């Protein structure tokens, strides 16, 4: 079948020396990949290797509060290498747990956006007509607004509908949903475009004649052909999703201080910035920046590698 | 200034044939090599190519895609795209070397001495500027005319290439012209500074068949009137037969045959050219089957030893596998084939010729 071959071809091309060669030969990309993997490992192993459990109030003691980082000042303590905040929470451990949350939310929302976008794009492109028109109008309107505004809106709506306590409990899911809902449009459009192209090809018409159901046709034949562009969008989106979540948390409408992400940590630390305790904000900030930078570099490389025009 | 083609012979059709004993050739290409360094090694796209073009002559350069004809043309105008580069050889225009000129010097040569026409007239013109503006700009770059005089010249050029209503259409934008008209504008642009040589890279390939003939006729006429030589690169033998005085056949980056057009067409001296000519259907004769050359042109990374064509040649001998033939006299022109050498192709090879 044409599509099977198309996907198989793509896969083999990807594993072919071209991409691998361009990966190996670009020092920045290799470093970026290494850094990303390191951060991911650190984050997911947090429960195991973090020196402290900063979000278990029982383990905290105020006397540990506001310790500066070890190498900067003689007040430092090696058991809190990056310092502590005003409640005695270890910054290093906070960062590890926080990164974990940031990554989870980031990846999850990209997956949500992808699934939603691909589904809607397939439906819209394949069935056409009113369904298509409606979906695309919604997409157009949504695109008028920047993603963060959409995410804020959704969060605001949820907040209005349920009590604030309950909201904190399910905050992670709300945020994932909000961010996912604000990014689906690009996927939908791209997929729809591909569907429109493939729809008229003979193998689809043949499949229809045989009597295959539309779902089967869409998933088995059209979907493999859009993997490339979708991946490209996903790589751009991951960095954006992480930033969006961090921004929402910073603004106080994202993850709460009971399960903070890097953005929340930065917000908590920001309040102490003026009085000179800069490490509570800056270290999570640096981590966030490095993480997103590494993700973007990888994304850039992947895009260049997949772009047939630049080969 | 153009050399004088007087005292030249005339062939049967009345075309003036520049004889070999005229003034020094307008363009000399000697042992040109164009390389592409890639991660897989260096690709040799143009391999030891030599030819000459006399003033006012039309040289056709024909061959399959990938044979190196476009690159040769680009090397001559100095517009090889990096990482491609001229690795060896010389290109001389009226005796002066132009392959090693600094960018600024070469820029002055382009347009004023050598012009170029590319394949797609739509993408060759800047869509945001009117045709007149693009003409006037080129004219003023090379000839020091006032804006008004330049515009008049532009209008005249448009008339010359056969655009009706030139005075109004000069202010139109490229998308307002049809394909054939656009190519005429492109020809006008190429000629507006009065160059002595035009490199035309597949000028008719992107046009409708009905328009092709008109554009080719126009090109031919203008070049004759302005005494401009043409290097006509194309894969279409029909166009060559119509227009060229001499033709060079390229294969795998080398010239395999070069000579007067009628000679080459009627009595091909190289087995590849033979195959090419035989594969063109013609209304005149009735043939059982069109000739087909088995196999395909080798990739640039896999050029065989000896003669590049040998794997597909039905007349090869042992010598062809080992020694690479240079162009040698054959019939009325030259061909790169041991068949025309006194020592011949060597012993016969048993078995079928392998296909590339």
């Amino acid at each position, binding site marked *: 079948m044409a599509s099977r071959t198309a996907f198989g071809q793509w896969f083999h091309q990807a594993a072919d020396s071209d991409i691998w060669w361009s990966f190996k030969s670009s020092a920045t990309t290799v470093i970026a990949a290494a850094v990303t993997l390191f951060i991911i490992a650190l984050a997911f192993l947090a429960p195991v290797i973090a020196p402290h459990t900063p979000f278990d109030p029982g383990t905290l003691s105020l006397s540990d509060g506001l310790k500066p980082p070890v190498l900067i000042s003689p007040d430092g303590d090696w058991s809190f290498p990056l310092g502590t905040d005003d409640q005695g929470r270890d910054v290093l451990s906070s960062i590890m747990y926080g990164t974990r949350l940031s990554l989870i939310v980031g990846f999850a929302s990209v997956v949500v956006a992808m699934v939603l976008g691909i589904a809607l794009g397939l439906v819209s492109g394949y069935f056409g007509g009113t369904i298509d028109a409606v979906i695309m109008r919604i997409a157009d309107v949504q695109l*008028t607004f920047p993603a963060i505004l959409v995410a804020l809106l959704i969060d*605001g709506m949820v907040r209005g509908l349920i009590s604030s306590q309950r909201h904190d409990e399910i905050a992670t899911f709300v945020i994932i949903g909000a961010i996912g809902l604000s990014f689906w449009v690009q996927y939908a459009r791209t997929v729809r475009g591909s569907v429109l192209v493939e729809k008229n090809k003979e193998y689809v018409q043949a499949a229809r004649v045989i009597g295959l159901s539309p779902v089967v046709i869409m998933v088995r034949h059209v979907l493999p052909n859009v993997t490339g562009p979708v991946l490209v969008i996903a790589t751009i989106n991951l960095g954006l999703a992480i930033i969006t979540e*961090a921004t929402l948390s910073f603004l106080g409408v994202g993850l709460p201080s009971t399960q903070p992400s890097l953005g929340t940590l930065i917000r908590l630390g920001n309040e102490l910035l003026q009085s000179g305790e800069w490490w509570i904000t800056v270290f999570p900030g640096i981590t966030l920046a490095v993480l997103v930078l590494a993700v973007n570099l990888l994304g850039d490389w992947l895009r260049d590698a997949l772009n047939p025009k630049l080969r | 200034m153009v050399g004088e083609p007087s005292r030249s012979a005339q062939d049967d059709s009345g075309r003036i044939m520049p004889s070999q004993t005229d003034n020094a050739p307008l363009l000399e290409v000697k042992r040109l090599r164009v390389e592409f360094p890639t991660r897989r090694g260096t690709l040799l796209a143009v391999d030891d190519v030599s030819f000459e073009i006399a003033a006012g002559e039309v040289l056709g350069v024909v061959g399959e895609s990938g044979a190196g004809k476009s690159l040769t043309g680009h090397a001559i105008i100095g517009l090889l795209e990096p990482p491609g580069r001229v690795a060896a050889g010389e290109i001389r225009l009226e005796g002066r070397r132009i392959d090693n000129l600094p960018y600024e010097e070469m*820029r002055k040569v382009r347009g004023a001495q050598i012009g170029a026409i*590319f394949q*797609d007239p739509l993408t060759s*013109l800047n869509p945001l500027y009117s045709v007149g503006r693009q003409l006037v700009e080129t004219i003023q*770059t090379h000839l020091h005319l006032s804006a008004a005089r330049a515009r008049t010249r532009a209008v005249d050029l448009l008339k010359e290439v056969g655009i009706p209503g030139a005075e109004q259409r000069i202010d139109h934008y490229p998308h307002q012209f*049809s394909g054939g008209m656009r190519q005429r504008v492109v020809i006008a642009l190429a000629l507006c*500074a009065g160059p002595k040589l035009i490199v035309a890279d597949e000028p008719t390939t992107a046009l409708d068949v009905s328009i092709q003939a008109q554009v080719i006729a126009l090109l031919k006429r203008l070049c004759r009137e302005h005494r401009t030589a043409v290097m006509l690169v194309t894969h279409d033998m029909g166009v060559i037969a119509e227009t060229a005085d001499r033709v060079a056949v390229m294969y795998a980056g080398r010239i395999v045959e070069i000579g007067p057009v009628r000679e080459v067409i009627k009595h091909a001296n190289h087995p590849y050219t033979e195959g090419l000519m035989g594969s063109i259907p013609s209304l005149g004769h009735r043939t059982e089957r069109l000739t087909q050359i088995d196999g395909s042109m080798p990739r640039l990374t896999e050029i065989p030893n000896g003669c590049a064509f040998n794997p597909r040649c039905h007349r090869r001998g042992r010598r062809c596998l080992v020694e690479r033939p240079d162009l040698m006299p054959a019939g009325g022109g030259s061909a790169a084939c041991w068949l025309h050498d006194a020592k011949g192709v060597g012993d016969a090879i048993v078995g079928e010729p392998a296909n590339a």
Partner: protein
Amino acid sequence: MAGEEMPHDCRQMLAFILRRLMQSVAVLLAVGMVSFFLFRYVGDPINAMVGQDTPAVEREALRQKLGLDDPAPVQFVRFIANAAHGEFGLSYRTSEPVNRMILERLPATLELSFCAALFALLVGVPMGVYTGLYPRHWSSRLLQAISLIGISLPTFLIGILLILFFSVILRWLPSFGRGETVTIGWWTTNFLRWKGLEALILPSITLGLFQLTLLMRLVRSEMLEVMRTDYIKFARARGLANRAINFGHALKNTLVPVITVTGLQLGSLIAFALVTETVFAWPGVGQLFIQSVQFSDIPVMAAYLMLIGLFFVIINLAVDLLYFVVDPRLRGQMGTRAGTH
């Protein structure tokens, strides 16, 4: 064999404008629907407006007075009509009229966005052109690397770092608030006082940096694409001077698609301002919106939404018109815009 006729510019343009206007109205209505939905159905407006111990009878009376039991379409039309007059009721949080709150803070946001846009344009476009023309030079590569950092840093982080550096450590610039302003009519402006301008610097840079890097990368990649086109090759083949090629042909072709993006960026700047305003405690509509989200102050949220929708629609329309004017190809066709959203 003659070419197409000269298009009737005015007629095509008029048709195009009309079509876009209708689309804009449709978008506004759609935004209005979302706003209305928020306004009416998220949470109970009555509960938010009256105290806990107000008797049911009074609540019922209030319901009647506000027409909350009318059929939805009627309420929707009323909502839209009110919105068209700028009437959004009272804030749940402060009980002030929403439109007054917004109007008070609008100049702050608009001025900030304007400065940020100016910064992004004046620095981003030239940098993009430069890195596009000389992509292999070391300075270009350096700028590319910096730009990558620019789009990886979240805006709030940039703000924090700038504050840390220029306010806390160097003490050169103020770290929050709007500084000194001058009131002219209903507008308050920073531009007429040094202290006012000073307060604008850090927030503008923070807000504009992301757009700057986006612009720079866009201009660069457009430039690179343009330099690879056939018409540039042909221009070189005609022996045109580098200056004529780079700034005459290439630049113009590069900037045409950039215009759309730039215009749309201005719109998103106004929306993105909310992050910067929070970091710098800048009293604009963005900060107001954040507060309203935190407190579920629905009327303000709805009003902000419509306002932003309005801005975006106007900007989109203006950009489309501009595109039409600049690209001669569009004037001859049926006004289909070649750009993308």
